[in-house]
């Protein structure tokens, strides 16, 4: 109960550091979601239409990658981005960009796989209408995605929830640097390690509140069952 009061106090008192950390969390996760959407929605759409063995194999791979462990993604990218690694010259390890890259890798398969399923589940009539109107490829994509918008929105929501609440990649790639790469999840882990469980729990409540609020907001706007 005290933790709830601590959380409320942290929110009400407008603790500047908590807000800054929340902003970093949102910035990193929303950037990753944007990149994953730009790449993942077209990829899922393309895979839904593609025929042949290669497309089937690629679909299986995309579905499989939705289960990538966050800490393994963090570790693999760490080796890539470390100064001794192949991409070390870019000097990106322990920056927000590195965290965005990691979370994009985590979000992309979810967005692509669920878009694929959404498009596949569209009634055949939708495809026929789109084809019969003689629309260009891009327009057809837009029309079909509008048909599948609820399922795609739900895909983005899942992907956001996954990256916004993940710790493994964020802490390995960001390094939990104060004022720079400290996010809600990494600061919760830190406060717990330091022994400040009350603050850890308070920050946890903030993390949960945001995650649930985003979910509820998107759900009521786009995903409510037609009555």
């Amino acid at each position: 109960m005290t933790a709830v009061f601590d959380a409320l106090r942290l929110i009400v008192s407008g603790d500047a550091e908590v807000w800054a950390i929340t902003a970093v969390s949102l910035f990193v996760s929303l950037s990753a979601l944007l990149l994953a959407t730009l790449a993942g929605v077209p990829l899922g759409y393309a895979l839904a239409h593609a025929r042949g063995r290669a497309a089937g194999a690629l679909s299986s791979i995309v579905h499989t990658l939705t289960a990538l462990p966050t800490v393994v993604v963090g570790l693999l990218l760490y080796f890539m981005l470390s100064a001794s690694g192949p991409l070390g010259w870019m000097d990106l390890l322990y920056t927000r960009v590195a965290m965005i890259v990691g979370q994009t890798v985590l979000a992309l398969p979810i967005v692509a796989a669920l878009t694929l399923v959404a498009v596949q589940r569209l009634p055949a009539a939708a495809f026929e209408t789109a084809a019969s109107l003689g629309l260009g490829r891009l327009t057809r994509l837009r029309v079909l995605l509008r048909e599948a918008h609820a399922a795609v929105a739900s895909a983005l929501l899942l992907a956001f929830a996954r990256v916004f609440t993940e710790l493994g990649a964020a802490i390995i790639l960001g390094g939990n640097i104060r004022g720079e790469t400290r996010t809600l999840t990494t600061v919760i882990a830190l406060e717990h390690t330091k022994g400040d469980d009350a603050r850890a729990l308070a920050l946890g409540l903030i993390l949960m509140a945001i995650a649930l609020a985003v979910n509820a907001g998107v759900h009521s706007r786009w995903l409510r069952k037609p009555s």
Partner: protein
Amino acid sequence: MTTRLLPAAAALAALVSCAPPPSVLRIATTTSVDNSGLLEAIVPHFERESGVDVQAIAVGSGRAFQIARRGDASLLLTHEPIGERALFDDGLVRYYRKVMFNRFVIAGPAANPAGVRASESASDAMTRIVRSGALFVSRGDESGTHAREKSLWAAAGARPRPAHLIETGQGMSATLRVASSRQGYVLTDEATLARLAGAVTLVAIYTGDPALLNTYAVAILTTARPARNEAADRFAQWLAEGAGQAHIDAFRISGRPVFFRWPDGVDRTAPESTPAGVPR
């Protein structure tokens, strides 16, 4: 083909432009200097003087060595003489100075079931803990504190049986909390014990053996990125030989000094070097 490569090149350029500027100094530090609040207290002074933005990655000393060896941090602040010597042996050290010291403390339940208070030396204290069958809680995380614990076991020629040993694999604070709730003995730095004094029921039971001196050193490795070397040199010198020493001396936890500046006249350049005594 070129038109396809252009966006890719632009994306790459955008990513590269996100790399931190040379005025950012990334340092790998042991958790105790960060968790104790020392960095937060002294680093802003340097940042104001120099215009350098110091970004600390606080990890166990073992991890910190690895980060610096790979070139992912420009400067090291650690308290693990054996690991620091290994950096010398590998020919990686460009700059090395002792910065400050305090003590390791054998802490435990106030009832002191192993009778450790009367020990003649640190290794005698460890032997008493093993013989009494009391519980010992270990970091088990290759940190500087864990390294010191291992050398104390080696000096004692004894180790607790597995049933009497808990390895937390976590930081000092978490380990102290485990030791407190399980009423076990634990090796800790005095800064972290002081900071957690209100949250744990442990008391400092044995200290005073020179083998328990805890020395902190700053190092710059040859693997560091050249672009950041100027900032790294400035911060290292500020910390070890400049204004930083006074700020370290002024730092307090609950009114108590917990880090002591390196005394003049004592060798600063060798990992094995220790000051003669502890001011009290």
